[in-house]
């Protein structure tokens, strides 16, 4: 409760143009926003850029934030809309004047992870990226951002029945892809 009140204060101060307050809000949600962007876009470099853009959009729209809503779901709705928009615009991304190359390979992940584990994780990420963006969004919000159905409804503005249908299909597609990559051998209950 105290945390909620504290968040409300930070939002109000941010609306008044207090950058330090907005920085505190960003500190709280940077991880969630980056991971949403990373899972949606499939590229860490692009996800970092997208996270910054998402926070800039949040700042621009902050005055319109309805304080009856949860800030986290409002923030994630801006984030997921931005990522879907960015995926749509990807085919025209080359028209930008920015000197960016998107597929620079990442350096190794470090010795603490075994090669098999890394392979499996990459297989999940690859499978996730094969999902249509609308299904990917729901799966990421459910499994990676750990949101409830109600919260996903709030983020996406979709009815619960649609969320459940999309999640079921996303699970089925992911399970098929993971079986094809031999990450899971058994038949998963879907």
């Amino acid at each position, binding site marked *: 409760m105290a945390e909620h009140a504290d968040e409300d204060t930070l939002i109000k101060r*941010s*609306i*008044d*143009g207090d*950058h330090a307050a*907005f*920085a505190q809000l*960003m*500190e709280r949600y*940077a*991880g969630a*926003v*980056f*991971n949403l962007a*990373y899972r949606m876009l499939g590229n*860490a470099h692009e*996800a*970092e850029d997208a*996270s*910054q853009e998402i*926070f*800039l959009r949040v*700042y*621009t*729209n*902050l*005055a*319109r934030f309805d304080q009856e809503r949860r800030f986290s779901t409002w923030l994630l709705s801006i984030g997921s809309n931005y990522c879907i928009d960015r995926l749509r615009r990807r085919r025209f*991304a*080359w*028209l930008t004047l920015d*000197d*960016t*190359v*998107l*597929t*620079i*390979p990442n*350096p190794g992940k470090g010795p603490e*992870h075994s090669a098999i*584990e890394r392979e*499996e*994780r990459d*297989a*999940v*990420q690859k499978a996730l990226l094969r999902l249509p963006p609308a299904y990917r969004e729901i799966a990421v919000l*459910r*499994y*990676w951002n750990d949101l409830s159905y109600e919260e996903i409804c709030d983020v996406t503005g979709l009815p619960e029945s649609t969320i*459940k249908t999309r*999640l*079921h299909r996303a*699970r089925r597609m*992911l399970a098929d892809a*993971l079986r094809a990559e031999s*990450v*899971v051998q058994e038949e*998963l*209950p*879907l």
Partner: protein
Amino acid sequence: MASIDHDDTFRDVLARSGALEHHEPTVDLVASTMRRLPKAPPRVVARRAAARQILRRAITLLAVVLLLTPTTIGAFNVMRGIESPMGTIASATSQVNVRAALLAATSQRFDVSVIRGLVVALSWLVQMAAVVLTIGFWPRRSAAAGMTLLTAPLQALGIGFLATAALGVVAALLLFLLTATVIGLPVAALVVLLAHIPIALGIAVGARALGLRLSGHYPTHDFDRNLIAAAAALALPAALAMLFSASAAFLTLYLLAMPGIGALILSQGGMRPLLAAHTSHNRR
């Protein structure tokens, strides 16, 4: 209830594979966003953003109107058989007359071979400047497209040939309609300039690829002597073709730009390069 169980089972599978682990960004997201955050409070920023969006839409609309209006009038003139302003100019002063007048005026002061030499040198320098500027503006993307050209040269050449042909057809059609009306002439000049941007980019990517091949290591985003040598070498054929005619020079330019244009398309403007196994190995 069953749905929730399946949900949990699936989450367990994902967790076991390590896929649910959170990733950490490589940069400080808060600090980097703070650097880009506008000084003004959100309300003011929102108002400015709305104004910018209106301005962007107005400019787009204006550009469409500027292109469509003279094109439509030109098409109308062509259908009615009205002589185009370019036709009138051409019949009044034929190309031969212009050349003869120019030669007569200049040969009184300079030797013709000196003038030709100057034209070759000038066109070589202009091309070099265009290549250097393009690479200077997009060092990473031009390098990425250059690597794509080295990875798939034949594919790039094929795509480049088709794209250049398509660009030529579209530009020729537009110019035919735009030059059929007086108000279309400035827009036609703009179209000619715009149509040559992909050509300049293609030459720059070709120079990048040649520079990378000469230096033998990937990727290099900096200017080095190999890149300058490659730019100089690629600019030379079109400059020498100026000795024969301007059209020969342009044709040479288009031919040299084709592989680079193809590589640009293949690599989505240098943003998603195709990398051969040895290049990606060297990148680490």
